[in-house]
């Protein structure tokens, strides 16, 4: 926009896009009817923008790597294990943790829409919501993993977990070699978002040493 155009902007009214208008309409109607409270909406947004994200899941995975009792509890009932640990913010979703092993690699998708474990990973990346990922990962998971530069040994089975609105999956990646004796905090730095979706592996210690 040129300076000339800009000078004249104040002569005109403001402009809201079609979607902005519709969201404002919804919010106003729902607020007037008492269904939503704008301050609560702001708090929800702030929570998702600043507090939840893959760092939450990474800490859970690192705990599972270092604490066998927590690992067992997590694999048995992830929601309960997380909520009863006292170390993490309570999660509301029904969360199922699936563990990668040399025999089985797990990948998560939501073929219907894009259900995702918000409480532990934040909101999904764009590619997770895209039709190509949603359809291809089911038909040909290995080629999708190749897109993400993940190659698995021939003998490793790939299992794809299709999320539903009520069941959301968290992949527990394999703990990288060469991390014996590492603290939970240091380990958590190796756990990427993609490794908890299954489209990545935990980072190699050599990749993060500086």
């Amino acid at each position, binding site marked *: 926009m040129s300076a000339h155009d800009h000078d004249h*902007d104040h002569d005109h009214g403001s402009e809201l896009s079609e979607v*902005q208008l519709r*969201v404002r309409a919804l919010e106003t109607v*729902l607020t007037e009817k008492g269904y939503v409270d704008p301050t609560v909406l702001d708090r929800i*947004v702030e929570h*998702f923008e600043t507090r939840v994200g893959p760092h939450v899941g990474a800490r859970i995975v690192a705990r599972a790597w270092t604490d066998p009792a927590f690992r067992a509890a997590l694999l048995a009932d992830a929601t309960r294990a997380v909520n009863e640990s006292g170390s993490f913010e309570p999660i509301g979703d029904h969360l199922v943790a699936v563990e990668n092993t040399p025999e089985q690699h797990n990948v998560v998708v939501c073929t219907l829409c894009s259900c995702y474990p918000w409480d532990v990973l*934040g909101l999904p990346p764009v*590619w997770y919501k895209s039709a190509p990922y949603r359809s291809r990962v089911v038909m040909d998971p290995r080629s999708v993993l190749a897109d993400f530069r993940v190659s698995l040994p021939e003998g490793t089975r790939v299992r794809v977990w299709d999320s*539903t609105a009520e069941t959301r999956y968290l992949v527990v990646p394999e703990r990288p070699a060469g991390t014996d004796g590492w603290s939970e905090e240091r380990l958590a730095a190796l756990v990427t978002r993609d490794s908890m979706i299954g489209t990545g592996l935990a980072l190699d210690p050599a990749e993060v040493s500086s």
Partner: protein
Amino acid sequence: MTSDPRSVVDDALAAIPEGERGRTFEEPWQAQAFAITLALHRRGVFTWNEWAETLGGEIKAAQAHGDPDDGHTYYHHWLRAIERLVEEKGISTRATLARYRDAWDRAADRTPHGAPIVLEPKDFG
């Protein structure tokens, strides 16, 4: 449907400016739409299953109308899904939502650029 096997990630990222990757929401209205949905679910207006079915239905309908469904139009589908549930649950009607939409449009028109836009009774014309 043919798609380049190497394109899942690249395509999804291509349209996002470098500095905005990793942002939670691409635009504030998406955050509002998301928060409204969570708030309505907390109030028990719908279950997550109902939500997923409605959103899934909107995505399929959009695909049928030529939407690329590449992840970038996701919140458009999301917004349609809330509007539909709000109507189906009898909370409001399409006509009411349209009336409020038009009122916000008038409010924006009469508000000088840069000033906060506030809805007033006169905007309902």
